[in-house]
Structures are given as C-alpha cells and as structure tokens.
C-alpha cells in the first residue's frame, strides 16, 4: 500500500493511504514496526485512511507493544469519520493515543 513518510524533528510521521485491510495490513505492519526502533517516536496520520479492519488494528497493536518494549512513543491522528467509528467499536483509543490533528500529536510526542 502507499504509505507517505516524513520526519518532523526526531518524529517519524507515516501517512498510509486507502484501506488498511486483509490485503494491505501486512505492508502497514511491516513499515510501522520497522519505524519503531529503540526510543523512536512515531505518528501515524490517518487522514487518508478510509477504513481499517481487525487485521489493521492488530498491526497497530503490535506496534504499540513493540513501542512500549523499546521505550518509544506511538500516536495516531486525524481519524476520518468511519475510522473513528471503528476505533470506538474496537475500543482502540485505550490502546494508542489518539489526537484530532497531527499538530496536536506532534506536540505530545516531542
């Protein structure tokens, strides 16, 4: 899947595009985990994500676990309406920090 990437200081910002589902979650997981090195701060900008399935959320959970084990930080921002609903249904706001905007998330991750 297409995953945009930039750096804001020491923070890696990933911006996946489209659906994170059974077809695309392996790519998302692979890119997310490779970014979560020791002490790394990673923001996933969901502004271009239309949908996320349980497989995509599972990838996010693996990222959260890896981040905690490596003393890193992980946050997500800019959930669209459908993704926001899925985060609510799955109770994933209890797993990762969710911010309204990338700016809010970056401020918290610095």
């Amino acid at each position: 899947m297409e995953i945009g990437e930039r750096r804001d200081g020491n923070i890696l910002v990933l911006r996946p595009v489209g659906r994170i589902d059974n077809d695309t979650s392996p790519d998302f997981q692979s890119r997310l985990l490779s970014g979560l090195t020791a002490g790394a701060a990673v923001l996933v900008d969901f502004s271009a994500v239309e949908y996320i399935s349980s497989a995509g959320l599972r990838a996010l959970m693996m990222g959260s676990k890896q981040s905690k084990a490596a003393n890193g930080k992980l946050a997500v921002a800019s959930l669209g309406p459908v993704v926001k609903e899925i985060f609510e249904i799955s109770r994933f706001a209890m797993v990762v920090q969710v911010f309204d905007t990338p700016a809010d998330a970056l401020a918290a991750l610095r």
Partner: protein
Amino acid sequence: MLIRFWGSRGSIPTPLGYRAVRAKVREALMAARGLKLDSLSPEAIDAFIANELPFSVSGTYGGNSSCVEIETGGDEYVLCDVGSGVREFGNALIAKHGPAKKSRFNVFLSHTHWDHIMGFPFFTPSYIPGNVIRIHGCHKGMRDVFIRQQSDPCFPIDFRKLGATIEFVELEPGRTYEIDGLSVKAIRQNHPSDSYGFRFSKNGKSMVYSTDSEHKFDVLTESYPFVEFFRDADLLIFDAQYSLADQISVKEDWGHSSNMVAVELAQLARVKHLVMYHHEPVFDDRMIEKVLGETRRYAEINESPQKLIVSSAYDGLEIVL
C-alpha cells in the same frame, strides 16, 4: 429446527440485583410519562413495553451460563453445553410433561470448563431413573470431570448415584455423525485446554455453535479453517465476549473472541444470522445493547454481498430456522 437459548452469559452466571431491576423500572416509568396509563388496555401496555422501551429496559440479556437447546422435531432433546441454564431447561420440561415421562437427551459439550457444566448437578431429569443422557464431546476424561464436580465436599450427591443412565460419547473432530436426525461435525478451537465447535445440519438448514474460541489470525483469508466450517450457515452462535482491543492485548490467550472478528468471519463465510454469545459478565444490559448496536454498524461499514443479521443472545431467545 428451533434454537432456544437457556444460558447466554460467559464465565459465570450474573443475576440481576435489586438496583438493576429498580433502574429498569425507573427508566420504564420515565419513558411512560405523559401517557394516560389508567386508560390504557393491557394490550396497549404490552405494545408499549415491546415497541417503545429498549430491550435493556424491558428485558435482560440474562444471567445463566452456557446452554442452548436445538428442537429438531425428533423424539430426543438436544442441548449444547450444560451451564447453569440447563437447570431452567430441566424445570421447564418437568413442568410441561411431569416427572413420569422418560426422555432421552443428547448433550454436545464444547469443553469442561466450569461455566459449561455447572448446571448439571441441578438438572432434575438426571435424578430420574429411566431417563437417558448422552454427553457427546471431543475431550477425553469427560466423565471424570463430571464426577469431580459432584464430589464431596463440593456437592452432597455423588454423580454415580444419579438415577438417569448417563453415557459419555467421544467424538472425533472433522467426522460427520448422525444423531437424532441431525448431522453433526466438530472442530477444534483455540481455548485453554481446547474447546470444540459443532455444526448441526438438518433439512438443508445449518447452525453452528462456536463458543469459547479465540481467533488469532494475522490476516483473514478463505483458507482459515473456520471460514469453511461456518460456510453458508443459517445461524452462527459465536463467542464475542471481548472488544477487539481487549482480545488482542490484556486478554490475549484467554480463549475468547470479539464482535469485530465475529462480523468479519461471518461475512467471509456468508453466514446469514450471527448471534453474539457468551457475554462478558462485567457488562450490564445497557453495555451489551451498546455493543450490539456497534456490531450492527460494523457489519454495515464492511461491504458484504449478503446482508448479515446480527443479534445478541438472551435467555429465552428463540430462533426458527
């Protein structure tokens, strides 16, 4: 086939306390404000309860642990699990036919964890000579577990002294059996000490009873064995005890699944009706109703060629296939 739920709660029975009952009465009265109650007929009051109150107010998802009856139209009774719900099933049977009628029962046991067998010492037909109870399951040593459950000092009546003839029948997963006119097949499930799901078919209709099963796929594909096991089922009774977040974090490896995994699996397998089962004992009726609404919404969000009906089991629910 008629499917009747006698016990829908997971892990442990959860009776309503007086506070919960009082809160329901209060909510019902609040909802009735403005109605001229003294001029309403009993039928109008029944219609108000059925149509104007949410089920979490007018009813309850229930307190008994796992027990589901399959009415096959045959002479024998068929049950899935004998949690605390089987006590009420036995009492209803005796109230209907009296204790003199001798019956044959086929129990399909998902596993021997306590919440799935705890009703058996209170299953009155097991005390009546002439009744025959066959307990089918894929675990070895089922009889020993039932004996232990009813041993001194935990219970005053030894299992071996029960009046009914009780037999244990070990089934092999993957093999199809014909029992009381039903085709039955079992599948091994991921649960501490294993559990087994059962697929029942008769006259072109099929029902799957799949409780206490944790699904841990990274990516869901057609090759996942449960997709085939659930394929085109008219009814899928599915353990959806947790949220996805709980299932894959703090409660990982506890052996249960979530509502989101339920929807994804049911839709991929083209199931017609999904019934969420084995409700989390921490959840009150309002929370179970909230989860039901969210699960229906998730089924809508997921594009599926066939509409999936989603329900939450409650003690007393009946579904005709």
